[in-house]
Each structure stands twice: as C-alpha cells, then as structure tokens.
C-alpha cells in the first residue's frame, strides 16, 4: 500500500494522487452487470446512434466510481467519504483515457477532521467530463 496521508499533513491547494483508467467495452458490460444499469446506450451502438449519440458511451456512474477509487486509494484506512457531488458535463467513450484529479480546497476541524476536494475526470481530449466536490473525514 502507498503511504497514507494524515489530516495534519494535507495542504490546501495540493493535489492528491490521480488515477488513470481506460474503460473498455468489456468493462462497461461488467459494470452493467454489477450496477444493474442496462441502459442500451452503454452497449448497443445502433441504439445509441438512434438516440442521437455518437456511439456507445461510458456510464457516468462508472466514472464516479473511478473518482471514489482515487479517494480511497489516497486515504486508505484513515478516511471515509462523507459527501460527493458531481455533474456529468460530457461523454466518455470506450477506449478513452480518463484521468481522475483531486485538489484540496479546504480543511476544517469543527466536529471532525474534514477535507474538501475539487474533483474532476478529464479525458485525453482535454475535456472535463465530470466535475464536482468531495468531502472526506479523516481519523488523524
């Protein structure tokens, strides 16, 4: 495991380690099975084209799950996701290279140790297809 951060050492403005993902059509099928989201726009090209899309698209929530993986890879056993808020701004396609990013926006020590992150997913075309914020609680 990577070394895990402590609340004290996290600095506002710093980035957390990113995560790169390359979703394939096989992964979309696996996600459909695991999540129960069988919307045909994620596996049926003709259906997607007929609905005005350029082709089969990656599930938005799979991209959100990639972000969540980035968080837990970072905080390890020391943190927990408290709140996540994301908007889906663009489409990703199988074969895209998606990079998850997070930058520390705020630290708070009111009732518990909380860190707020600005988060986004960017594809190889430089498009931020998912943007949002996350709040992580830290145990120390």
């Amino acid at each position, binding site marked *: *495991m990577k070394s895990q951060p402590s609340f004290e050492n996290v600095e506002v403005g710093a980035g957390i380690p990113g995560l790169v*993902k390359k979703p394939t059509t096989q*992964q979309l099928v*696996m*996600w459909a*099975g*695991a*999540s*129960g*989201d*069988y*919307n*045909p*726009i994620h596996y049926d090209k003709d259906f997607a084209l007929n*609905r*005005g*899309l350029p082709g089969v698209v990656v*599930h*938005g*929530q*799979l991209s*959100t*799950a*990639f972000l*969540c*993986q980035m968080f*837990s*890879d970072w905080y*390890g*056993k020391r943190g*927990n*996701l*408290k*709140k*996540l*808020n*994301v*908007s*889906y701004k663009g489409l990703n396609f199988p074969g895209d290279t998606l990079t998850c990013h997070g930058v520390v926006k705020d630290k708070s020590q009111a009732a518990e140790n909380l860190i707020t992150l600005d988060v986004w997913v960017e594809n190889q075309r430089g498009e931020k297809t998912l943007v949002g914020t996350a709040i992580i609680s830290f145990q120390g």
Partner: protein
Amino acid sequence: MNQQLTIEDLKKQVGQPWLTLTYPIEHGMVQRFVEAVGDENPRWRGKKPEAPPALLLTIGFERVISMLLNLPEAVLHGSTELECFEAVKVGDVITVSARVTSIRERLPMTFINLEIEQHNQKGVLVARCKQLAILRGKA
C-alpha cells in the same frame, strides 16, 4: 420486471414514496462491483468487507433506470450527490426508498430529480443519494 411508465405517471409521483426495495449486501455483490471498477483496495476484500461508497450509488437506482428505459426518450445522467452517514458491510440489509422530488420539462428534454434514502437493518440512515436523470427526446 419492468413496468410500463409514462412521464405523466411520474408527475403524479412527485413528492410521494415511489419505490421501496430491499438489498442484502452479499459478498459476491461487493466483489463483482470492485472487479467491474478495477478497485483492488483491501478495504473491500476479505471475509466481511465494507461496501465501497460507490456501490451505494447503484442500489435502488438500477430499478429506476430500468423503469425509465420504458420511455421512448434516451435516458442520460445529469448529476449525482451521495451523502454517507454509516459504513455498510457485507451482511447488512439495506432498504432503499426512492421518490421523485421534481420534474421539469424543457422539450425535448425532461429533467427528473430523484432522492434515494438507504437504511440498514437497524433502521439507521446510512446514505442519501440524489440523482438527476435527463430524458432526451427527438427535437
């Protein structure tokens, strides 16, 4: 099984309890999920692991998607909000309550806001999820 649904039916549901479903959090369910994501974090592995937070986004919502897919419009995802209050582990039984909070039409688009609350077998609220589904019709 899918139920036939129209947007007018959905409008009648605004603010009302819509779906209530129960999900036992099983080991295989969690493993299929983390394998689909490609997430090898040990927190989600072992004999009685935690469920990753992203799993909570999917339970209950898959039934909503299934029902919306009966409509002729393309179903897209606009936004997601997840609040986690308690950890969920393998062995927990989660009851999901979904309701439509608002519907806004700006044709050819229809925006459907949903709220899904999840309680464990002790009646404790473990998570609240808000989803924006967008129905995109042909212009």
